[in-house]
């Protein structure tokens, strides 16, 4: 099982993502100028401030050469996990529904939050229990997920809301407390909180590992 962790100019969480992946498999960095994802079983689009987040978070990174390869990989059913800026990039690229706006309180947020797992039928949550609570940190400036009411209703009905902030813990004003969503097939998942920063009890929680273990389980199931 080999993870490919994308690296854009301005990424800053790619090394933690590699370390998290290495707890459950192999991992390598994939530079944004690459045009192929050879030998990669799962893609992680990490956090940071790709291309300075100029214009809108993720708006320019979606045009990176590697994103064409990620699109092909996702359309072929390959598992893709976007974290924070990676979530923003995948939304801007149209691989995930919705958009991320500046936090309601206009401040950069950095805190531990409780996440509720809403849908366990995705590549990133297969190893979670429905309704399970995960303690994972958020750290972002533009984390207010938004979708128009009709789109939100459609996503809720089709199970594409994957994570919600626990009651009273919505840190950024996201509609319906949504913290993470997936595409229609459940093989592309994105969330604002950082599971790669919660993989060792030393840092307060190892709950984030569940997502990486899920990606491995999905790969093994697909190979079987």
């Amino acid at each position, binding site marked *: 099982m080999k993870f490919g962790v994308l690296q854009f100019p301005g990424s800053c969480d790619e090394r933690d993502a590699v370390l998290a992946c290495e707890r459950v498999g192999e991992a390598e960095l994939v530079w944004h100028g690459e045009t192929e994802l050879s030998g990669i079983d799962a893609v992680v689009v990490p956090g940071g401030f790709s291309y300075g987040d100029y*214009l*809108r978070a993720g*708006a*320019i990174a979606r*045009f990176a050469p590697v994103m064409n390869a990620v699109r092909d990989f996702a359309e072929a059913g390959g598992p893709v996990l976007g974290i924070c800026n990676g979530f923003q990039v995948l939304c*801007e690229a149209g691989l995930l529904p*919705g*958009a991320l*706006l*500046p*936090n*309601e*309180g*206009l401040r950069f947020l950095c805190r531990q939050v409780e996440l509720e797992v809403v849908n366990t039928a995705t590549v990133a949550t297969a190893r979670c229990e429905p309704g399970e609570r995960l303690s994972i940190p958020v750290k972002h400036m533009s984390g*207010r997920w*938004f*979708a*128009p009411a009709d789109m939100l209703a459609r996503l809720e009905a089709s199970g594409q809301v994957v994570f919600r902030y626990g009651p009273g813990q919505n840190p950024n*004003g996201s509609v319906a407390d949504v913290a993470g969503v997936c595409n229609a097939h459940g093989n592309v998942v994105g969330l604002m909180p950082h599971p790669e920063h919660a993989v060792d009890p030393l840092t307060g929680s190892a709950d984030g590992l569940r997502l990486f273990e899920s990606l491995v389980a999905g790969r093994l199931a697909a190979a079987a």
Partner: protein
Amino acid sequence: MLIRPKEGILDPQGKAVERALPALGFEGISHVRVGRMVELEAPEGADLARLCEQLLANPLIEDYEVVEDGE
């Protein structure tokens, strides 16, 4: 190109500016919205709508307007 947050989307920047106005003695100003302006020179016939829809604005959350000054 003028890019604005779509009607109905909370614009906390606009709200923060609005709350500062009474300190300057301005009363009764409301609906402050902060958007973005992008200036550029384009050749005749360039598809500026596509440029806006695919990069400068995110049509899910923003409206755009192309204003040409013809120079």
